[in-house]
Each structure stands twice: as C-alpha cells, then as structure tokens.
C-alpha cells in the first residue's frame, strides 16, 4: 500500500498557530474582553501541507465589530473604506445613555446605577483609531515561526525518505 507522506505534522502546524495566538493575546493587553476570546482551533494536515485557524470573538457579533474597528480603525480613523462619522441609534431603548466629561449644558442628564450620564436620541460617532493587533502579531511571529516550520518540514522529509528507502531495500 502506498504510504501517505506527511511533510507537515499536526504538531508543527499547532505550534505555528500557538505562537501566533500567543502573540495576538500579548498585543491585546488593553482589552481583556477581546483577549479572552482568542481561540486556536485544531490543526489539519494533508499531503500538500496543513492549516490551522484562529478566531476572535467567535459567535459574538458585537465583539467581532469591536475587533474589526480596532484592527483597521473606524469612522474618521478608518484605514479601509470611506472615512466618515457613523450614526448610532438606540436598538432596545428610547434613547442612548453614556458617560461624557463636561457635557453641554443643554444636553439632559440622567442617573443610572449611581452614575451620571447624558441622554441623547442618536449620536454621530467619530470612530476609534486603529490599534492593529493581528497584523502586528503576524509581522512579529511570521519570520521565526516560518523558520521553525521549515526546520520541521526538512526533518519530516528526511524521516519520510528514510522510511521509503528502507521499504525499497
């Protein structure tokens, strides 16, 4: 029977993914919410190589939006698409409530949970500045991880060839 030659092993691809996931978590020190939602999935290998996926905020659309906004910037700070303020309207309540330092005297104030905030029917949000954590992680990891992967592939290839040659003898 012809052997399935695997030049990339699951352990190699998992190690590669793990170093990238670690780097993403390290870059997300400023957001516990996002950091805790970085998930490394199982690796898969076939005769052509392997694949592994990392998800951030899987199944949580609000957090996904936050991750995207910080990775690429949003609103007037967007690094992709058009730069403009975006409208936020209340979904489940009649008005928006949030904390604001030195609010305009004409804006109504409302106390919620002991905190004073402003009440507005809608806002034009300027967006957030980009704090890229994925691209930064890729840049810092890729060279070392690729080098490690290349060493593993070389080692696996030699091992596989040794087995094939032994079978021929």
């Amino acid at each position, binding site marked *: 029977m012809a052997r399935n030659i695997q030049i990339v092993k699951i*352990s190699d691809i998992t190690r590669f993914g793990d170093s990238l996931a670690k780097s993403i978590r390290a870059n997300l020190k400023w957001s516990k919410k996002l950091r805790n939602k970085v998930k*490394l999935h199982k690796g898969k290998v076939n005769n052509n190589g392997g694949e592994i996926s990392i998800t951030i905020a899987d199944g949580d659309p609000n957090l996904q939006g936050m991750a995207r906004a910080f990775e690429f910037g949003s609103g007037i700070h967007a690094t992709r698409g058009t730069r403009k303020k975006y409208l936020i309207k209340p979904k489940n309540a009649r008005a928006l409530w949030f904390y604001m330092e030195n609010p305009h005297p004409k804006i109504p104030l409302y106390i919620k949970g002991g905190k004073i905030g402003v009440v507005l029917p809608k806002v034009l949000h300027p967006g957030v500045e980009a704090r890229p954590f994925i691209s930064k992680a890729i840049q810092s990891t890729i060279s070392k991880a690729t080098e490690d992967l290349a060493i593993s592939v070389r080692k696996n290839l030699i091992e596989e060839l040794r087995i094939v040659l032994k079978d021929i003898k």
Partner: protein
Amino acid sequence: MLGDEVIQAAIVEKLKSLAPFGLVQSMEVRELSWQGDTFTYPNIRVDLESNEWVFDEQERCNLQYVTFSIYIFSEQRSSKECSQIKTLIINALVGMGFTSVTQQVKFSRLRMVDNVPAIREDANTWRSQVQFGSRISNP
C-alpha cells in the same frame, strides 16, 4: 468494511476501560464534535480522521487503516493535568493491540503518529492531542 461509527465507538469504549488509571476513570469520553451542551472538565474527545479501505496486491486481501486523534481538554491553570492524562493514554495504548467485543473491531498494534504538547485553546482551556494510526479488521 467497518463503519466510522463502529470504529469510533470501539475507541471510546477502550478509553473508558482504562479505569485503573485513576485520572482517566471519572472522565467524560466522547467524540470530538459531540453536540451536547453539558461539559465537564477534564475530558477526552476522540476524532476519527481517516478510515481507508485498500486492496493489498501482495497479500491479495482487503485492508483497512485508520488514523484517529485523542484530544484532552483541561480547565486547570497549568497544563500539568492535560499533559499527565495524555501521558497515561500514550503509555496505555502505544504498541498495543486490542479488540472490542461489543463493536467487533480488532485494532492491530497502535502506532503513535504525532504528539502535540498542551497549548492554550482559549482563555480557560488547555488542549493536548495525540494521533494514532492502526490497521483494523474483524476479530
């Protein structure tokens, strides 16, 4: 041909039978994509990755090869528990052959294909993996 469900059930049965190893005894052993909603940790998951059926021209017979992974999940702060359970499973299975009487499957000498050290899957979970290969047949 031996079906995927039969092979998977035989592996789960074997893992459950590793009772003398105190750590493994009380653990939940199921298939990897089990669609339940109650999980206890640590737990063990089995993933049947390939089930190949081939005709051996030299021996003039049909052969069946399987590759499967055993995943160990733990929620401890350190990866120690995860690695300990994996070591117990490796020591119990590598080089061994076993037969499942209930599922009517015989596994010839299990070969360890790969061994993945514990990694952080997400904020709370450690995951380690060991991949096995074996030839299977009817007993």
